[in-house]
C-alpha cells in the first residue's frame, strides 16, 4: 500500500496555485478596492443626479458576497415631483 502511495503521490503546489488563482480573481473583483462601495455610490449618484433630484442621504449601496457570485444592491429614494421633481437632462 505504501509503495502504491509513493508512486501515486501527487504534488500539492498545483492545488495551491489553482485555489489562489480562483480566490484572488474573485476577491480582486469584489474587494480589490477597499473603497469600492464608496466609489460606486459616488459615481452612481452622479449619473442619476444628472436626471433626477435625489437626496444623497437617502441612498444605500450594499455589496454582498456569496460562494460563487456577489450582489450589488442600490437603494435610492427619489424625491416626489412636488419637492423638486425631474430636472432637465444635460
Amino acid at each position, binding site marked *: 500500500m505504501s509503495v502504491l502511495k509513493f508512486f501515486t503521490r501527487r*504534488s500539492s503546489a498545483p492545488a495551491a496555485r489553482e485555489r489562489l488563482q480562483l480566490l484572488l480573481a474573485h476577491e*480582486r473583483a469584489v474587494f480589490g478596492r477597499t473603497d469600492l462601495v464608496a466609489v460606486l455610490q459616488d459615481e452612481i449618484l452622479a449619473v442619476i443626479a444628472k436626471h433626477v433630484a435625489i437626496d444623497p442621504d437617502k441612498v444605500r449601496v450594499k455589496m454582498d458576497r456569496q460562494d460563487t457570485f456577489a450582489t450589488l444592491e442600490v437603494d435610492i429614494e427619489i424625491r416626489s415631483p412636488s419637492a423638486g421633481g425631474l430636472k432637465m437632462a444635460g
Partner: protein
Amino acid sequence: MAEVLVVTSGKGGVGKTTSTAALGAALAQTGQSVCVVDFDVGLRNLDLVMGAERRVVYDLINVVQGDANLNQALIRDKRIDSLSLLPASQTRDKDALTAEGVERVIGELKNRFDWIICDSPAGIERGAYFAMRHADLAVIVTNPEVSSVRDSDRIIGLLDSKTEKAERGEVMEKLLLLTRYSPERAERGDMLKVEDVLEILSISLLGIIPESPEVLKASNLGSPVTLANPISAPSRAYLDAARRLRGETVPMTVPTERKGFLGNLFGRRAA
C-alpha cells in the same frame, strides 16, 4: 534624493522585520545612509532584531507628538555608522500616530538619509496605513504559502489606492521579496514556485531569500543577518536585493550554503 521604502506583507510572521533589518544593513553596507523606522506601535521588535533594545530612550510616537526631536530618538548602529534606527513605542497605542506628525517625521528623515525603510506592522489597520502612506516604493514580503500570498494581494490593492503616490495618480512600484523559500521543496511540487507567486501577484521580483537557520541565529544575537554572517545564503540574497534596489543588474539566483571540505564530503544529502 531620499527614497522611502515600505516593507509590508499583510500577514504576520513572514519576515518583515528580519527583512527590514537585513535590507537596511545591506544598503548601509554599500555606503548609503539608511534609517529603519518601526511602525509597529505597541509591539515593537525591530530594536530587538537590530540588537538596540537597551538603547531606546525616545521613540517614533515621542517625535510624532513633538515630545522629543529626531536627534534624541535616532539610535545609530554600533557596527555600521551610516545605519540608524527610529524605534516604535512599546507602551503607547497605535492611535497616537497622527497623519500630520508622521508626514513631518518622514519629511525630516528625507533630509538626512538616502533611504528611509518603514517596517510595517501586520494587518491593514492604522499602523500599516501610516507605514505605507508616504512610500515611493514597496517591498512585499511573501512566503510561498497560500495565506501569505492572499494577504500580499490584499496589501497590493491598498498600496494602489491608499498611498499618497496612488492618490496623486502615480503608480506605486511594488517588488516581491520571497522569503523562506526552499528550491528543493518547490522542485518536488510541494511548495509554490517563484514563478507561481510572481504570476499570481503580477509584480516584479526583488529577491528570493532561502529558508535558513542563519536567520534565527542572527536574531538570537540581535544582528541583521547580513552583518552576523555576510557569506551565509540568506545574507547573500539580501545583499543582492539591496544592490538591485540601488539600480544594479544582479542575476537572480537562490543562494545556497557554501560547504567546506568536510561539508562536501559528509554534508551532501540525496535530494
